[in-house]
């Protein structure tokens, strides 16, 4: 491949954008995946628990 200025910049601009979109979609799917909801809920509450000890 010819590695000149325009190729590199073109690559950056196009793939950079795809990457941004893919990233965003991935994160959103993860966050809104129904079965994850419960774990998020637990995580959110867990830190307020009182048992202040290592678990094992």
């Amino acid at each position, binding site marked *: 491949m010819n590695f*000149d200025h325009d190729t590199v910049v073109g690559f950056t601009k196009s793939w950079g954008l795809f*990457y941004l979109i893919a990233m965003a979609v991935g994160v959103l799917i*993860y966050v809104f995946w129904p*079965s994850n909801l419960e774990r998020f809920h637990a995580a959110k509450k867990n830190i307020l628990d009182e048992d202040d000890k290592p678990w094992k």
Partner: protein
Amino acid sequence: MAEFHRKIERNAMGFVLAIVVVASIGGFVEIAPLFTIDDTVENVQDMRLYTPLEQAGRDIYTREGCYACHSQMIRTLRDEVERYGPYSLAVESKYDHPMLWGSKRTGPDLARIGGKYSDAWQVAHLINPRDVVPESVMPKYGWLQRNALRIDDLGEHLAALRDVGVPYTDDMIANATQDALGQAAPDGDFAAGVVKRYGQATQVRAFDGDPGTITEMDALVAYLQIMGHLTDAAYKQAAAAEPAK
């Protein structure tokens, strides 16, 4: 998707990798092309190297933190060009390891300070800025005039710079100490050598006014006086762009 994420999460190493990849891409994409492309740094013929004395002065400039108050980067804005001179080109800091563009102008930009004042003004200003500019808030640098410059290791400095890409020759490295002495003592034995190695335009003067001893002041003033004059490219470009008066 969810299964994939659960795996990533349970294994903290996967998570680590995800962070590294996601975070690296931005920097990589912006920085890598700067090394592969030609037109980042203009190609000019007359670009010259810092002499050992000037490089020592540059190191003092770094040491004293002059960059904390002075920029060396004239932006492409009309008022900056009128105040300081032609805007800075990338090539002008090609041999600057590291660059000293700065980020704060408590004092004026220095990119084109070379030749603006006499050596005597620079020395007086550095010893006590308020003697010359009564309102100035710049610090005094009296010790530069008192400290002898360390010159025995200048060859090692040039050699390290060559390792990072500055084209110093063996001859320059071997004679670094003499060249520093020569540049600050126009009537001395070594003055001819430095001109031979670094070109006719090299400024050979007793920068601190005393040819007898070589001080840190000599080095710093030599550096200030060359600033903006390693190449004429910026001035030529500005002249070409100027509409005929």
